[in-house]
């Protein structure tokens, strides 16, 4: 904003202990940072990725997040929508989000073009404990539009390739057209130190489809990654996650080895509006990243 900075924006974590309320301007935890859409990628029918840069140079320089964290994205006039940050924290200077056009806000976001302004609040929530995974083999399992949060971790691990053992990616979508990040899938497929297994649901294949045909849990069982010294990261539709967890159990993975991210509807993102809770667990504050063991302890409120 021109002139003086009057409002604290974005993540609401500004330190202001010992200052009385009268002396300072209000710390508005709901006020987003302003961002410019720098690039737009068409991923699949109605699915887009935005590359966003913060308008404020100070924010651009200081903004940091970890893989798995999320934010609230504003289309001014339509409202806010919650998605993960789909880019990797190792890629600095911008963030990306990937979303499917569906409701009021995502439709309004879809109407925006390169150079347009939108809002971002965050980063919020916890993250995947990647540093604890050093030396381990990592298996990524994603379905459809569940790839974006996993993609942040995938690039994070690939950018720190030496820290990890084998990297396996199992990804499937309804049809070939519905696969997101097609260019990156091609890139991962070419990497000699990444094992990529792609699949589409039966009936979703095209004549020249070279990947598997089948549902993700089945394809995962066939790929049969070893549970030894491994962690698994999964995200997708609730029904897919349910069967992926069963498949991983069959393969010998314990619930402590499996991580997922629970993406519920949110409005505030900071533990106040009351809708993202799964029983007594507030996804926005205590999640969204959990081990399968933690998920099994929750109230059945999915």
């Amino acid at each position, binding site marked *: 904003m021109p002139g003086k900075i009057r409002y604290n924006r974005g993540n609401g974590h500004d330190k202001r202990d010992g200052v009385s*309320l009268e002396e300072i301007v209000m710390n*508005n935890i709901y006020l987003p940072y302003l961002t410019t859409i720098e690039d737009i990628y068409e991923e699949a029918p109605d699915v887009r990725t935005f590359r966003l840069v913060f308008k404020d140079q100070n924010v651009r320089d200081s903004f940091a997040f970890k893989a798995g964290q999320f934010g609230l994205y504003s289309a*001014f006039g339509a409202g806010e929508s919650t998605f993960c940050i789909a880019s990797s924290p190792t890629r600095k200077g911008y963030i990306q989000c990937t979303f499917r056009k569906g409701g009021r806000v995502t439709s309004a976001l879809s109407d925006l073009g390169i150079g347009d302004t939108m809002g971002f609040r965050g980063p919020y929530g916890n993250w995947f404990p990647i540093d604890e995974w050093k030396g381990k083999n990592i298996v990524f399992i994603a379905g459809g539009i569940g790839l974006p949060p996993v993609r942040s971790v995938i690039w994070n691990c690939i950018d720190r390739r030496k820290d990890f053992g084998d990297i396996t990616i199992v990804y499937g979508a309804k049809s070939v057209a519905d696969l997101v990040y097609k260019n990156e899938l091609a890139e991962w497929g070419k990497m000699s130190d990444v094992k990529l297994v792609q699949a589409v649901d039966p009936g979703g294949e095209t004549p020249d489809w070279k990947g598997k045909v089948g549902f993700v849990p089945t394809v995962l069982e066939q790929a049969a990654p070893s549970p030894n010294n491994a962690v698994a990261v999964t995200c997708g539709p609730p029904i897919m996650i349910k069967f992926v967890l069963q498949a991983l159990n069959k393969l010998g993975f314990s619930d402590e080895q499996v991580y997922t991210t629970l993406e519920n509807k949110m409005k505030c993102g900071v533990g*106040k*509006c009351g809708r993202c809770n799964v029983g007594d667990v507030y996804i926005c504050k205590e999640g969204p990243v959990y081990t399968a063991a933690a998920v099994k302890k929750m*109230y059945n409120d999915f």
Partner: protein
Amino acid sequence: MANKFLKKETIGKLIDALTSEGSIFVAPKMDARQVVYAPVSRMEEIVFDYIVPRNPFKEFLFPQTEPIAVFTIAKEAVDMKGVEVNAKETVIFGSRPCDAASVASLRSVFNWDLKDEFYNRREDKAVVMSVACTKADDACFCTTVNLAPDSPAGSDILLKETESGDYVVEVITDKGKKFAERFGNIFEDVSAKKAKPAADVKRIKGIDEKKIKEWLKDTKNYENPLWAELSRKCIGCGACTFACPTCHCFDIVDEGSAFEGERIKNWDACQFEFFTLHTSGHNPRDTQYKRWRNRFMCKFNFYPNKFKSYGCVGCGRCIRVCPVRLDITEVMATISVME
């Protein structure tokens, strides 16, 4: 702290003194043939004979609708600016002790980790002057949740009526002390006045909050068919949530034209189907009993365990306003005897 004394006839002076300074004086008054907490400007507007006002006074700390930011959309300049809250001092006279106890609950939600200054600035400027209950109705159940008709929790000043209609004044908090000192000409130093006995609100037999909490803690009981049975008649109108002093859920929406508008925080209710509906069509709480179960859990599990505060203060409003007579105490009683 020595008790003080407030003569009923001087309340008008207190209102004048406060409103002339720009403060808001909220008290029980008649509106559409109901007693409600509302701002008053004259003592004659105040209703002194009431049990519990129709609305909780949370709307003066957490307005039903409140702009949090303004946006402008122009070709070369899209911007959003925060809205500053300049809360006015708000005296809530005639609050009931149950409602006063709910303030700590709201405070805990709006302050865990990130602090909501829209709430805090208002609460900082609010003075809660409760009047202990000398009457109760069949819906009142404060004693069942371990509060009382004369409980001081959450009040800055607690007033107890005398036979003459005046008040014995108990100063509870520092804020209350400063307030009583500021109006030293109104709060008299008279001792040895006798207040009327508090209302006799009987504990509801068979309700054991400890047992309820234990039963709720077991995640297996979340699947018990009892939930669907107990809440079958709920029509999901959400009236209980709006009338509840501790319900705090809200929505954030943008309203305005194509060029400018406001981002607004509105009360919302966990009883509504859209509340948790994902864009994909998936809804974690897709049937009414799941939404009702969530509200009950919020009162007797989330609030006490997570926020260490009262989820239910026993005001009885949800029972009074429910169009299908779903009585939360019946559910409490049923769960109390579950194995």
